[in-house]
């Protein structure tokens, strides 16, 4: 074997098998594509493509089932954790995950996510927080920041009128039944690598049957924020991270043991 042949056979990076080889409908600079790819890489690495079931949300990620090469269903707005509960209880040995935006999870679906966590439902939730309603064209989200201008808070979000942004990760972490609840961000390569590690742990928590797992991913929406793609990433770092601090909010000892074995 020549040196050259050896090099050709060493694959260091490739298109994940669990990610369909098609273009997405996401806007330029949107971080949904990164989140999808991280999930697909984790599914490949854990070898769970044939046993994984995706519950897609209503929102920009409504067609996530087109992009991930796994069985999928499309939930009603906010109801993904309830639907995932019905699926997981009926197929307890499959890996079931929801992929939900902030409007879906933190507004219309608040009851469903909280009670799925409280039941310790053995599902994994990937929570995309971009502080805006993307699909409907940039309205105020439950996670929009104070003073953030949106098409339904044109003078900036005034908490006295529009209420306060809600920190779901802190809320879910406080619930008995959640096993692994962390917040990560997709605004730079370092954070993306951390995000992937967290997603992998969240799926492994489900495999081990340890309880409910959720990874919040701070995400960019350049189109509806009215920013360039690089500026949108900077906006995540400078405005979102201070309000939504990154970190581990709930990691059961049993989950730490999983991570140590990694």
């Amino acid at each position: 074997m020549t040196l050259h042949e050896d090099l050709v056979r060493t694959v260091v990076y490739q298109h994940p098998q669990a990610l369909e080889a098609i273009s997405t409908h996401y806007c330029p600079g949107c971080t949904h594509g990164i989140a999808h790819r991280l999930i697909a890489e984790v599914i490949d690495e854990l070898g769970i493509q044939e046993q994984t079931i995706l519950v897609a949300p209503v929102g920009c990620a409504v067609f996530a089932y087109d992009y991930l090469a796994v069985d999928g269903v499309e939930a009603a707005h906010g109801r993904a954790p309830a639907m995932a509960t019905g699926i997981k209880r009926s197929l307890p040995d499959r890996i079931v995950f929801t992929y939900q935006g902030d409007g879906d999870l933190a507004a219309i679906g608040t009851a469903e996510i909280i009670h799925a966590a409280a039941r310790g439902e053995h599902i994994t939730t990937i929570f995309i927080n971009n502080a805006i309603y993307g699909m409907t064209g940039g309205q105020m989200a439950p996670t929009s920041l104070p003073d953030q201008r949106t098409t339904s808070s044109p003078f900036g979000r005034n908490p006295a009128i529009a209420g306060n942004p809600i920190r779901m990760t802190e809320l879910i972490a406080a619930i008995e039944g959640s096993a692994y609840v962390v917040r990560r961000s997709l605004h730079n390569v370092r954070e993306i690598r951390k995000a992937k590690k967290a997603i992998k742990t969240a799926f492994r928590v489900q495999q081990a049957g340890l309880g409910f797992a959720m990874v919040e991913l701070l995400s960019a929406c350049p189109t509806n924020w009215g920013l360039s793609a690089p500026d949108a990433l900077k906006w995540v770092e400078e405005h979102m991270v201070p309000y939504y601090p990154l970190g581990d909010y709930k990691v059961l000892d049993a989950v730490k043991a999983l991570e140590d074995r990694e």
Partner: protein
Amino acid sequence: MTVQLLKGNVAIAEAAVRAGLEAYFGYPITPQTELLEHLSARMVELGRVFVQAESEVAAINMVYGAACTGVRTMTSSSSPGVSLMQEGLSYIAASEVPCVVVDMMRGGPGLGNIQPSQADYFQVTRSAGHGDYHPIVLAPASVQEAIDLTFLAFDLADQYRHVVLLVGDGLIGQMMEPAEMPEMRPIRPRPDWAITGAKGRSKHVITSINLTAEENEAANRRIQARLAVIRAREQRSVEHYIEGAKVLVIGFGTSGRVAQSAVKMAREAGIPVGLFRPVTLWPFPEDRLRALVDDGVEAIVVVEMNAGQMLEDVRLVVGREMPIALHSRLGGAVPLPEDILEDIVAVAQKLGLAGPETVR
């Protein structure tokens, strides 16, 4: 099978178990709670799925998820809870997955009361949520019929991959009657369209979104074509004292059951009256009703525990010329046979079918 004294709600729950129910999701609401309570023990004993959900909204979406995996699944509720399920029912119908929903109707609107009512007729027969479809709706009038229709509900749901509603009220649900409970059926295999993880096959997707008008019209046409088949094949009704009837009393469920006593009394008084009791509310048993009307019916008395919702379906079948009297009780009130008899006699007298002294 032996005859046992069974309470309606418990009988439906046990019938569901024996029909092969694998996953139940529900939320307590009077007057159906015994159904949920019975299943909270039975399903666990049998190693099947029981979840008490945080709301009817969550319960129907859990049913939706379970239905996508191909198991026999159901929920049960009462009118206000069924209102909350409308969104989920619409998604389930659009996704063409089977499920069974029991609605033990109560007096509305609003919180109303827990007394027997049939005021959900429009809510369940017209669409059950947004969009353009009808669920299959079955209406038992006794505990035995509730058991039998529960088995039928699961079979129809599977056969047509559709939503089937079994509607009763507090009387059917709370009443104890002698009835026979069929033996336990084996769990049927999962259908091949189910979401189970794409092992050894291409991936399955179950969704209700069709982005273009063309795609969504095609999806709607497919649903409508299936509904047309259901409408042609699945109309069901029961008749009593129908021979030579010139006056036809029409009522479903509890109303039909009470009206049967009134018709019996009227027959004993010599009035040529019969009872027509729809068992399927959708599809409404229009073919049989039309045949009866063509066979010499001169007037109709509709008995309902609502303001005359089924009457609209009756009117569509019989045309505008047919005289129809409505005996209607509202808000949880139940009709009495004697009161229905008075209406039958009044109609018969107008037609010259009863003398002025007929009323007892």
